[in-house]
């Protein structure tokens, strides 16, 4: 197989128990380069547990996550050393939190937030760091005149866009997003989704997006996993699953969207 045919991320039989409480059970899928996968389901269905396991923030009780590194070798993420995993996390991966305050350094300026990953991988030229930061602020539609303001002075939508810029600055191939539009009002959501869709297409990003909002899944993703009670009950192409849901629960989910 050529490298392009090998999946970027492979999940095999992932299970997680919180004591006697099931987190998720036997989840398997493959994600290819440039592909966006949405994980939908109600609260407590195991979406976030799955995302945290995929991103290596939590250990699975069973199963493994394998990732094709930049050198083309597919490796078990759990078997990486901590240094390697953290390096991967801040270069080839991105993680967009639902709450931007969790993903940003709120006390330092927007420019430093964007530049942090560059400095972490050894960039030591102030002019270049600032140039890249300005470029990325433009790309996520933040006024470059506000580069020296801390995110505490930004609106919710701007913070979320700043968080995205901060993650994408090292050119990652895979981005994890946990409810990226949660907590934003509808017009800001629409703008953010538009921006995300543009960036994902332009950069050829692969992404795993956790959301309870089927509209987000439909706009961003090509494939979808529907989770209920810790298990994947339905999966397939997004349009197919949302237009012609097979499982009763998915039918319920789809029918609970208010008609426009």
């Amino acid at each position, binding site marked *: 197989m050529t490298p392009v045919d090998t999946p970027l991320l492979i999940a095999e039989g992932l299970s997680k128990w919180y004591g006697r409480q099931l987190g998720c059970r036997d989840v398997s899928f493959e994600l290819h380069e440039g592909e966006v996968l949405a994980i939908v389901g109600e609260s407590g269905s195991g979406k976030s547990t799955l995302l945290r396991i995929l991103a290596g923030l939590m250990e699975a009780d069973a199963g493994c996550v394998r990732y094709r590194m930049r050198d083309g070798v597919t490796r078990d993420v759990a078997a990486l050393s901590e240094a390697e995993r953290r390096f991967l996390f801040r270069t080839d991966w991105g993680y967009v939190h639902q709450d931007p305050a969790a993903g940003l350094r709120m006390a330092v*300026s927007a420019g*430093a937030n964007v530049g942090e990953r560059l400095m972490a991988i050894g960039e030591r030229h*102030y002019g270049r760091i600032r140039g890249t930061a300005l470029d990325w602020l433009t790309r996520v539609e933040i006024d470059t005149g506000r580069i020296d303001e801390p995110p505490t002075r930004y609106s919710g939508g701007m913070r979320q866009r700043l968080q995205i810029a901060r993650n994408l600055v090292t050119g990652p191939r895979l981005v994890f997003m946990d409810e990226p539009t949660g907590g934003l009002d509808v017009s800001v959501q629409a703008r953010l989704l538009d921006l995300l869709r543009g960036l994902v297409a332009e950069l050829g990003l692969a992404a795993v997006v956790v959301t309870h909002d089927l509209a987000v899944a439909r706009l961003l993703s090509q494939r979808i996993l529907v989770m209920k009670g810790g298990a994947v009950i339905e999966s397939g192409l997004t349009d197919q699953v949302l237009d012609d849901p097979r499982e009763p629960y998915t039918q319920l989910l789809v029918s609970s969207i208010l008609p426009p």
Partner: protein
Amino acid sequence: MNAPAYNFAYLDEQTKRMIRRAILKAIAIPGYQVPFASREMPMPYGWGTGGVQVTAAILGPADVLKVIDQGSDDTTNAVSIRKFFGRTAGVRTTTHTTEATVIQTRHRVPETPLKAGQILVYQVPIPEPLRFLEPRETETRRMHALEEYGLVHVKLYEDIARHGHIATTYAYPVKVAGRYVMDPSPIPKFDNPKLSNSDALQLFGAGREKRIYAIPPHTAVVSLDFEDHPFEQWRHPASCALCGDDASFLDEVITDDRGGRMFVCSDTDHCESRRAAPSQPTVQDAEVARG
């Protein structure tokens, strides 16, 4: 009561052994913060409890002790610590840098270059250079272990973004022996180059934070910076009003409420010995001669 009130140098021998072990480990891993069981000392935190414990652990009866506070031998902190060891250890004390074998310091490195055999003990308030950007101790330890030091540059970046230059003037972060990033305690960055390749042993004690770290003699210490904003030493662009030195670190002294001020050497011993040496004309002398 004829029994001595204190053990030699105040601390009991087992405590000194414990501190010495921490010091040896710190010397073996330059710049690494070694945790130690810091004791209550008869002075408040912030007055040098860490430095005092390190000094107590390394002091021998033959040592000559000098204590400086902001370069000065005669401020409250310096005088009381000097008297403390004079009473509890009976060691000889001095104000001359060249005579001392152990120098405990707060916020300065003496102007006179240190010699082999001398030990400089720093009092450290906050040993963690990453603290103000990363509040979690677990996380900063991991960052030291994995050599993830991008965050230090985030702080320097903020300086340049805000002030146009690296505005950190004291406690300027350094990298020791190419490995650990270290807080050199709040010495002015003017003194940073003196840390590198010194002939003397340098020990750092933080009493409240319970950490000891060290720079062994002849160890490379590099001040962190950006390629396009290199590290710069800074001093007041003036010369000392008492001894006329135009290369030493100066304190600004306000002399009245109408804007009058003078600059004097922060290192009092350096200033006094220059004035005692007959061949050095002072600025005042020069002015008198001119006038």
